[in-house]
């Protein structure tokens, strides 16, 4: 923002109030979000979730390497 010609009115922009959702919607959304947090937490704590997190980087790397090998086999005579 230019400081060459300050306008007092524009200084009030930073003071514009923040409005909010209706209180009932605030709490309803809070409850839904808590549910999402709990679901996410259950997924991460499951043995499948832990196993996936450990294996995923290696699986991704292996997949990328195999694709590269295939691509080279096609391109390189």
């Amino acid at each position: 923002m230019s400081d060459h010609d300050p306008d007092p009115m524009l200084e009030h922009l930073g003071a514009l109030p923040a409005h909010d959702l209706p209180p009932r919607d605030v709490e309803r959304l809070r409850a839904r979000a808590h549910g999402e947090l709990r679901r996410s937490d259950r997924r991460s704590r499951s043995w499948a979730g832990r196993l996936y997190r450990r294996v995923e980087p290696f699986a991704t790397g292996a997949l990328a390497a195999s694709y590269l090998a295939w691509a080279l086999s096609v391109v390189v005579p």
Partner: protein
Amino acid sequence: MRLSRAPPGGVVAPVEAVFERELLARLRRGDEGAFDLLYDAYRPRVFSFLVRLSKRRELAEELVQETFLRLARRAEGLAEDTVLRAWLFTVARNLYVSHLRATMLENERIDQLTLEEAGAMPSPFEAAAASETQATLERALGRLPAPQREAVLLVAVEGLEPAEAARIVGIEAEALRQRLSRGRALLRAALAEEDHPEAPAAPGRPRAGRGTGGPR
């Protein structure tokens, strides 16, 4: 700075960076208390940004809900260096842009994927303004072309640094500064016109009561 739960109808002060990192770590572990602190701190700001950007309160309500639900769903996967304020505004802004694109595709108008507006809609906050100054500013903000309005909202209203705002919008910092400068000039002209409505408007200036059309 200690963060306290917002009083009914009140707004919590912005969270300091250090405290926010601690909250982020707790949030990544699924801590509901950490989510609540961030939710109460940023919900009004993100909602207000969306209302002023879209000029549609109902749409902003939907988008702010989706923004925070995504935060909850993706909390565990957030990077350790995530800046939550930027993350929230980025997600909120992108949800709005996606909505616009979907609307334009439905209307078979895919000519330009910019922030278009459907005519000169008044700002939903203008009627709720506590003073004439606020009402005047809300009205002038609402008349800005969407790209300039977005830049002014992020930097002048929300207090983000131009570089941070540029990352949120997905453009170069210099481009954001140009939008900001243009938006400020248009605001100044609009406010001057409010003071002197009988003066003819200069070319390119938004005139009171008329839409500003597409982005500039």
